[in-house]
């Protein structure tokens, strides 16, 4: 028979443990509640419609709200970011686990962690003033020499604030998280397999290819998904380096893109009450999207750490 004080303790601690559930539930409930009218009015069109028109009651123009372009844009910039970040992150995780001299390992790990702690607004500032001039030059080069590939094509030679540049900034921001996760998985590779490979005359790279990458593949996939989720939710940095346009654009070098999170910031200031509800609904869509991506990521990462042993 547990004592009374212990029972109180267990109730309090359990209550604390379930706060996350309560908060996640409340977020869903409130955003859905505030955005309910939007879903009722537009239904699925809210997702598929590309335009965002607040309407004009005086002129009798009905509002027409849709986040299609922003949704596509979010996916495009996140994928560009992931595409750039993933090889770099896996490379540095490999360096930290198998190439680095011992004295360098710890400082470098701290630097990567510090990179994750730099505020979004600072990355945005840097991205706009420092990275963009260079990135525009690279974009021109890419466009000149690889323009025959559809995604490197541009309708007009305007390269500033493009999905490519947003993707570059996002890449810098998600490299630390992907590096951290893949590094953890690489560190779990059983030593006896590594030794077996070396004892068979493997070079460092052939050992990594035969032992480390097969073992770590799902960890890499999980880290990549987590990075993707992080990239999709980034707001301020993207807002500063991306030209929002309510039109889907797959020409990543061209100055036109979308991001739900940035759109919320962009529209928030001058939104009518009805548009505000639209923003709530957009927030809910973003929330569900990132939750889904994170869910898959965690499933994958967990599977590795279980089958790894």
């Amino acid at each position, binding site marked *: 028979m547990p004592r009374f004080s212990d029972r109180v303790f267990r109730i309090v601690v359990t209550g604390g443990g379930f706060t*996350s559930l309560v908060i996640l539930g409340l977020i869903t409930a409130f955003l859905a509640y505030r955005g309910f009218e939007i879903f009722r009015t537009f239904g699925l069109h809210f997702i598929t419609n590309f335009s965002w028109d607040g309407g004009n009651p005086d002129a009798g123009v009905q509002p027409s709200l849709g986040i299609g372009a922003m949704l596509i844009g979010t996916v495009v910039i996140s994928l560009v970011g992931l595409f750039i970040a993933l090889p770099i992150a896996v490379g540095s995780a490999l360096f930290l686990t198998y190439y680095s001299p011992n004295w360098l390992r710890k400082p470098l790990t701290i630097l990567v962690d510090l990179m994750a*702690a730099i505020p*979004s607004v600072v990355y945005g*500032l840097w991205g706009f003033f420092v990275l963009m001039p260079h990135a525009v*030059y690279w974009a021109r080069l890419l466009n000149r020499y690889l323009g025959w590939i559809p995604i490197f094509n541009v309708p007009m030679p305007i390269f500033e604030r493009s999905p490519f540049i947003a993707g570059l900034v996002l890449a810098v921001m998600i490299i630390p998280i992907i590096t951290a996760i893949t590094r953890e998985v690489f560190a779990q590779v059983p030593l006896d397999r590594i030794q077996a490979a070396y004892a068979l005359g493997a070079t460092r790279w052939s050992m990594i290819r035969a032992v480390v990458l097969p073992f770590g593949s799902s960890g890499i996939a999980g880290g990549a998904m987590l990075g993707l989720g*992080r990239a999709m*939710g980034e707001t301020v940095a993207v807002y500063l380096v991306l030209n929002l346009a309510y039109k889907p654009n797959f020409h990543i070098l061209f100055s036109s893109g979308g991001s739900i999170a940035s759109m919320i910031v962009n529209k928030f200031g001058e939104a009518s009450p009805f548009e505000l509800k639209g923003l709530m609904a957009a927030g809910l869509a973003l929330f569900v999207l990132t939750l889904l991506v994170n869910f898959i990521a*965690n499933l994958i990462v967990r599977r590795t750490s279980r089958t790894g042993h």
Partner: protein
Amino acid sequence: MAQSTSTQILDPSPGRPWQKSPRQFIPDLVVFVLALAVSEVTVSLTGLRGKIALLSLFTLYSMAGSMVIAFRRRGISAMGNALASSFVYLSVALVALPLFSVVITVISRGVHALRINTFTQDMAATQPDAPFNQGGALHAILGTIVLILLATAISVPIGVLTGLYLTEIKGRAEGLVRFLVQAMSGVPSIVAGLFVYAVWIVGGHGGFSGFSGAVALSILMLPTVARTAEEVLRLVPNDLREAGVALGGTQWRTVVMVVLPAARSGLITATVLGIARIAGETAPLLLTIFGTTAKHFNPFSGPMSALPLYVFQLLQSGLNVAIARAWTGSLVLLAMITVLFTFARVVGGKSKS
């Protein structure tokens, strides 16, 4: 080797024959110098311009050079190995480059408008384009401090409770709770802000206020605190718990008197890492504290400012002077986060050893 007759009795000194001798670095050095020279020539002869073009060419040439050397010395498998090594070193460089670039730019551009009054004045009576010796970020610094204190007060107790649930109670829902904490760490910051806005501000519980900002920040801080707290509580040896219970203590007394004190420095690390996570958040503050130019201490009513928001709002004015102030704000913010981060590392490093 001839000395071996005379030094029979003495042990030889430990050596590491597997490490490269300085002489073996000569070919690598030659490759680097050659690659540099050839890329200089390429830049001067072709349309490629600039430091970055030079760097990329240099990287490309030295990769090719090291592959040729490896192939000539040791064959095809060594060539693949050399290529992979170049790739791995290159990726570390590509991680370090933006990081250093960010830090160096923030410092070099941030000191431009850095004055004593940055820390002593607010912007209430100052236009953004006023000279740098007028106005400052005091209101934003104070706002950030208030927000951090409030968010810490909310999220640390809950985070530690979550950690305790995972390590001390180990209920049936352990997996679920851990999963939820993971899921929460993926909540986009703008969504947290939007949520608080939806509950608090639209709901008519009050307008923009520091407190609503702190609630939004707590949502983002909680998972970091909970996860780190779980890790450090797990490090508390089990015999300490058993000793507490064996002495007739109840579980909660054991936790309060034994487990938590044992994990104290780790819990401080958890708190500081959580603070470092939220100190630079901008997006949720836009929707909750709104921003102001004057000092404002009451977190329960009226707009407040905070450093990241201060930076963001100055940027939006688009004026050169305001942008210089924004860089200074970034410098202060970055310095603050670095200090917090270093502190967490030092305390955390101690607790682990």
